[in-house]
């Protein structure tokens, strides 16, 4: 975790965002993908509608970067072409803004939590940094895809709180900005 005042990338490039495809963009953090009340309805619905990469992108594009008042989409950390999806499997590649980004594990964790809470249970999710984009690529990937490490991290109240803030979709609510 970064220490106070040390921002890894003080001048990120901010991109303009594409218009949302009109899908559900107001998901509350704890909702299931299908905004129905009964679990059985959502099971029926997700058998009919397979999920595509744009829908997965919609779920993660508005996650806030931990250090800047910008979303992962605006910083080009995540993008739709970097998501691969099969019938039960999602692979998300993300690009940290700088190769030494110490926030990468946190960003990856936020992506994982958002998808865990939003996708149907059958999806296995793998999250990787874009090859060549990070100097500790292997170490970051290994942590992000270790189910036990992720579970233990989310039992750390301080870390969980930081993740929740990044996921809370409120512009300007930046947990680590000085």
């Amino acid at each position, binding site marked *: 975790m970064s220490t106070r005042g040390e921002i890894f990338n003080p001048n990120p490039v901010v991109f303009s965002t594409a218009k949302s495809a009109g899908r559900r963009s107001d998901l509350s953090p704890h909702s299931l993908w299908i905004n129905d009340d009964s679990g059985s309805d959502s099971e029926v619905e997700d058998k009919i509608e397979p999920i595509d990469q744009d829908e997965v992108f919609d779920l993660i594009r508005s996650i806030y970067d931990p250090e800047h008042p910008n979303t992962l989409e605006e910083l080009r950390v995540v993008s739709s072409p970097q998501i691969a999806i099969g019938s039960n499997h999602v692979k998300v590649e993300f690009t940290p803004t700088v190769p030494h980004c110490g926030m990468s594990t946190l960003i990856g964790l936020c992506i994982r939590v958002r998808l865990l809470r939003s996708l149907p249970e*059958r999806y*296995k999710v793998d999250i990787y940094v874009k090859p060549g984009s990070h100097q500790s690529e292997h170490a970051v990937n*290994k942590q992000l895809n270790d189910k*036990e490490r992720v*579970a*233990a991290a989310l*039992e750390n109240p301080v870390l969980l709180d930081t993740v929740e803030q990044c996921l809370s979709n409120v512009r300007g609510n930046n947990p680590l900005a000085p």
Partner: protein
Amino acid sequence: MDAELPYSLSNVADLPGHEDRAWNVAWNPVKPILASCSADKNVRIYAYTEDLRFKHLDSIPTGHAKTVRSVAWAPSGQTLATASFDANIGVWEKESEVDEAGIDQGEWECISTLEGHETECKSVAYSCNGTYLASCSRDKTVWIWEVLPDAEFETVSVLMEHSQDVKCVAWHPTEEILASASYDDTIKLYIEDPSDDWFCFTTLSGHSSTVWSIAWSPVGGYLASGSDDKTVRIWRRIAEHKWECVLVLTGHDRSVYSVSWGPGKDDKRKGKEGEHLGWLATTGGDGKVMIWEVEEPTVKEGETPSMSKPPDHRLVACLNAAHDVHDVNSVVWCPRKGYEDLLATTGDDGHTKVWKIAPSA
């Protein structure tokens, strides 16, 4: 289930109840009970009858501040140890208070809390005689505690050999040899030297990612390991303190989270060539439970026995979606005589399931 394989797994019990993922399950070696533990911080105890009716018996609200990751019974069957992400180990016993109806009204009590690990405790295991308790943690250490009378425990060794998170510890079934599996992709084996100091005498490398689970063969001489690299490796003892990898089993599509090696139960095997090494059960993130039959390599007439021939092996059963779409975190053979064909699994759905292996119809 694959109809072409010689054996099938049929479901004997489906035991829900945990409110979050269930990480581990352990059969009591003596009594007809088993325990499961969960991220919901509870341990659930189930009892079973000879005709395989299972029911929930007890819940232990462990008081651990975080996930209970692993449970282990002492060989006596009297004591249960819990390993938690809160870094502590709980040791539990139940006072027997059988009432007039023959029902045990005793409560599970924490007789000791073992502190020492700095971060999450991942696994705990008793040695074959119950003399030692081993534990391991994300703090990279393996601790060995001596089990003394009156719920006393003394730290005998703190082993700092791994370079990363230690995921699992397992004791040899008959000797005092300890194995540990780690996020550093290796397995280490430890014994006591003549002055009673524990040390690592060998490191088994070969997996290309985290080793999640290890299991010793019941007859000794072999060790199985399951890894994040989706393979299961079999290691053979080739000299007193030398082990080498003799087999790599593939078939899982995602991380292998748990392996368990049972003696097997099959009268048809008697008289067959090659020493039967039992059944290895493996499971993981792909939701499959695979059962492998392993044998000492057969030696053809005129051939000298070669220590470098890998063991004969074949897949004898495969169960898909054991816990529907959920990861299966733990698979364990029942250690009790007469129940060698029973297997328990727990998964991310919070259920504990019991399976019976039998020849396919």
